[in-house]
């Protein structure tokens, strides 16, 4: 037990997540061994992709501190998917659809960055505002109707599976997480992000370009939301104006569950990745056992509270 006691912060969270994940797996194994096949793995990863991408952006924004948070991610997912499809109808060559989708997301994210940096609005306020705007515009310009016109070759990518792993997860989610993890651990940018989150004033004093880093992170979060929008298009085969509904809260849950401190400076993307997989595995497990879906939200909520309290307790032991 002593080793566990010495764990703190991200390491403790990771250990907890793995323990919880094991509990879910063992529980499932005991009850329904038939669940364990490649198909289930594919299903879990398929439904993790969108949340993983959005959660990554959310996590990075929070990590950089300065009360960072991105409440607009769900709206950005919907709006970038809708804008990309609408621009096809206006004559854009379909080949450019992926680029437009991600670029639109990046621009929506950059707008958040501008509001936070340029106007010095608090991130909570700025992104609450853009949450209303992005999700509202996506619904209003379409009147709520799903948009068709996704090219066939995109569906091949979106619905493809290689060795049991969905192609979007393999080609988008994993590389994004790997790059982000690498950047955080091995580059100056990564150190800057942690330094900003830990103590912004000192970070400024030692010459870290805090504003530039923050702007890029918001734009990145938007670009990842755009990528998630692209995945939704390629997978569902149509653009739904409310596809990002609830993603702001879900991604926040994943980031917090993944051990990123809401004040920034503590945590890592590995935790977010583990948290996303845990959340989706849990949902899948509950569905496989035919447990009423109303328990899902409650269990996820309780899990979040539990992990936070555990983190808090571990800090108390150390002090």
């Amino acid at each position, binding site marked *: 037990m002593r080793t566990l006691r010495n764990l703190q912060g991200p390491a403790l969270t990771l250990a907890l997540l793995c323990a919880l994940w094991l509990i879910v797996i063992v529980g499932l194994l005991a009850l329904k061994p038939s669940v364990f096949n490649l198909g289930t793995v594919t299903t879990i990863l398929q439904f993790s992709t969108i949340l993983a991408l959005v959660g990554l952006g959310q996590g990075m924004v929070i990590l950089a*501190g*300065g*009360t960072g*948070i991105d409440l607009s991610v769900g709206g950005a997912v919907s709006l970038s998917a809708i804008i990309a499809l609408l621009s096809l109808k206006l004559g854009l060559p379909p080949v450019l659809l992926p680029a437009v989708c991600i670029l639109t997301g990046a621009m929506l994210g950059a707008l958040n960055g501008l*509001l936070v940096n340029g*106007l*010095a*609005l*608090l991130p*909570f*306020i*700025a992104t*609450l*505002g*853009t*949450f*209303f*705007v*992005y*999700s*509202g*515009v996506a*619904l*209003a310009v379409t*009147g*709520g109707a799903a948009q068709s016109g996704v090219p066939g070759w995109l569906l091949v990518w979106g619905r493809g599976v290689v060795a049991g792993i969905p192609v979007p997860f393999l080609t988008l989610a994993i590389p994004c997480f790997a790059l982000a993890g690498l950047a955080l651990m091995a580059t100056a940018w990564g150190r800057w992000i942690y330094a900003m989150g830990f103590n*912004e*004033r000192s970070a*400024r004093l030692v010459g870290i370009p805090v504003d530039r880093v923050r702007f890029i992170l918001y734009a990145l979060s938007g670009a990842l939301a755009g990528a998630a929008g692209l995945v939704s298009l390629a997978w569902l085969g149509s653009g739904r104006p409310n596809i990002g509904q609830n993603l702001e*809260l879900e991604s*926040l*849950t994943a980031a*917090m569950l993944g051990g990123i401190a*809401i*004040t*920034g400076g503590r945590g890592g993307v590995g935790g977010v990745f583990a948290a996303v997989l845990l959340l989706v595995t849990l949902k899948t497990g509950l569905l496989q056992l035919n447990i009423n879906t*109303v*328990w899902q*939200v*409650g*269990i*996820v*909520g*309780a*899990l*979040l*509270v539990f992990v*936070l*309290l555990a983190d*808090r307790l571990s800090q108390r032991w150390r002090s």
Partner: protein
Amino acid sequence: MSAVRQSGSGVFSMNGREWSLLVACLLAIAIFSVASPHYATQGNAVTVLRNSIELLLIGLGMTLLLAMGGVDVSIGIVMGLAAIAIGRILGADGSPFVALVAGPLVGALLGCVTAAVVVLGRVPAIVGTLGLLGVYRTAVFALLGGQWLSGLPSSLNDLLATTVLGIPVPALVIAVAYLIVWLALRRTPYGLHLLAIGNSEEKARLSGIPVIKVRFLTFVISGVLTGIAATFYVATYRNVETSIGSTSALDAIAAVILGGTSILGGRCSLLGTVLGVLLLRILQNGLLLIGVPSLWQPVVTGVLIIGVLGFEAVSNRLPLTRFQRAPA
């Protein structure tokens, strides 16, 4: 940060933001009156005011929470749970007077639960209440068993849709609630403590303020106000649906922010919240009256938030602003 910023000393003395919101409300009313011949009628005014009741009450509580550097994203579902209690009592042909008590009581209880997690557990309010949001939602589904409470008797409405001395009961309740919260905030140690905690919890603790007690109490107050909102909800709609309150928390936060309360805490405007709620409702109503589809209403809310706060940020920018940012 400098000392606690207070807006005047009288109940109705106003600061800059409050004046601009009032002007914005009046301007909107003037424009809509010109644009639509059906706007400036008594019936429409009553409609707008009627639709503001719940948000006003929840907003008052949210103002206190934000001023303290807290927040509660589960508050809409708390209203739902209180509404279920009221609905069950009415549905069993219980006395409307019992139902009147039930709302605030359930609200207070849930306020205690939320406070136990957030305050006693020392969890950041936004994340803690996010977790509770999920738990409460499951509770709503489980308690309703998937069924709505429909066709409830109008006994509670008969009680609340009346006038006392010519003043409608809802207006009276809101005025009293406003006055009590205002007095607590501006005339008692509790208010000073609350704003001090909002400014800096650490400093407040060091200077001997009972931080935990004050924070706990604030969540309970917000719960009680939300319980009263639930009472009006059930009385009016005589229906409790499973999706009840799902948008209330963000709407309330939007209105409070518009009203000039700082989410970093320490700055607080009750009058601003009232004007913020009214401005939102006036715009929603007026835009629909001049033919803008209801789907655009969230967009208007968002633009308003960014516009008003952005304008303020630009107009009184200080070189130190960014250094002053404290962790939430």
